[in-house]
């Protein structure tokens, strides 16, 4: 398992040409499937920032993200999903109560599967996530413990 905070800022390098495309800015999560769908890459000056589909990734290691080729950038279709940043996002339960903010997210670097969401109030399993939008990360309401007699 790796953490979002560990991979932010890693150089993004092509496997064939060993060309450095830029640095990994953030990861786009598709909450419905519980997987990372895209990587957002900020590129050097003069180039537009870009996104790379998770399946164009060769490996995500401790020191670099390797993509199959620079062609992966050009081949990127215009249908990139809207990115909502997960780190530092406000967490709301489906009951409408705030539950802190996202401190970090663990994921499997092989598959891109989300493991747990770390919050100031403890960890949330990936299957408790319901939706991620501009305003909040919505999670399932936990069993009521606050008003227990």
């Amino acid at each position, binding site marked *: 398992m790796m953490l979002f905070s560990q991979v932010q800022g890693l150089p993004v390098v092509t496997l064939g040409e060993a060309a450095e495309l830029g640095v990994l800015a953030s990861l786009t999560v598709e909450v419905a499937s519980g997987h990372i769908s895209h990587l957002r890459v900020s590129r050097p000056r003069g180039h537009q920032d870009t996104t790379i589909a998770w399946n164009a990734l060769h490996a995500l290691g401790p020191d670099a993200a390797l993509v199959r080729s620079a062609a992966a950038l050009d081949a990127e279709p215009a249908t990139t999903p809207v990115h909502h940043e997960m780190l530092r996002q406000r967490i709301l339960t489906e*009951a409408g*109560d705030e539950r802190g903010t996202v401190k970090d997210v663990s994921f499997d670097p092989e598959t891109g599967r989300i493991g747990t969401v770390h919050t100031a109030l403890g960890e949330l399993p990936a299957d408790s996530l319901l*939706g991620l939008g501009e305003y909040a990360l919505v999670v399932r309401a936990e069993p009521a413990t606050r008003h227990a007699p």
Partner: protein
Amino acid sequence: MSGLTAARDLAKRPVVTLDGEAVAQIKDTVFDGPAGRIVGFTLSGRGLLAGPLRQSLPWEAVHSLGGHAVMIRGREALAEPAAVVARKEAAGGHVLGARVLTDAGAEIGTVLDIVVEGGTSGRVVGFRIAASESLVPGSRRRRRKVYVPRGETLAVSGTALVVPAGVTHFVADDLPSFVGQIDAFRARAGREGAGPAPGARAVPVEADAPKEGPTP
């Protein structure tokens, strides 16, 4: 039971979809007085410059009323303003400012705010009232604001509402202690009906803690 909220505090609370998008914020809460429940909300846009929205949120479309947001399934839950506002007029209106009378004929105060239960019920559980001296004895200048349960029987007109006399035993000074009073009130109502019962679990007003400071 979910937390209690005063209706005034609902204003500006964001309306959030389960996808995590804030689509509006609460402008006003609309009640069905006699039924003792929320009919829905009128909405305004989010942000400093946003005005009223030409949309409303009927209670049936609410997923949950929470402490920080009103959750809905999606944007399609929003309806025409008429869906909520027409029912407001049908329900006959304003409770704020109405005199509160017990069914024994005593006036206990005037309504300042309406207290609703969070979650999915939309129920009105009580009122915040400016207490009259008969309910809360003491200096006239220290006009007290207290919470009273609404009771299961409730009659509402435009200018007054009538509650069971028993509710005066379950007055609270603040919302957290009101939660306990509501539970006690319901427990007793369930056991003996709505009539007042001397002794039992009645809690005298003076025993409430902590006291709210004098309010100008």
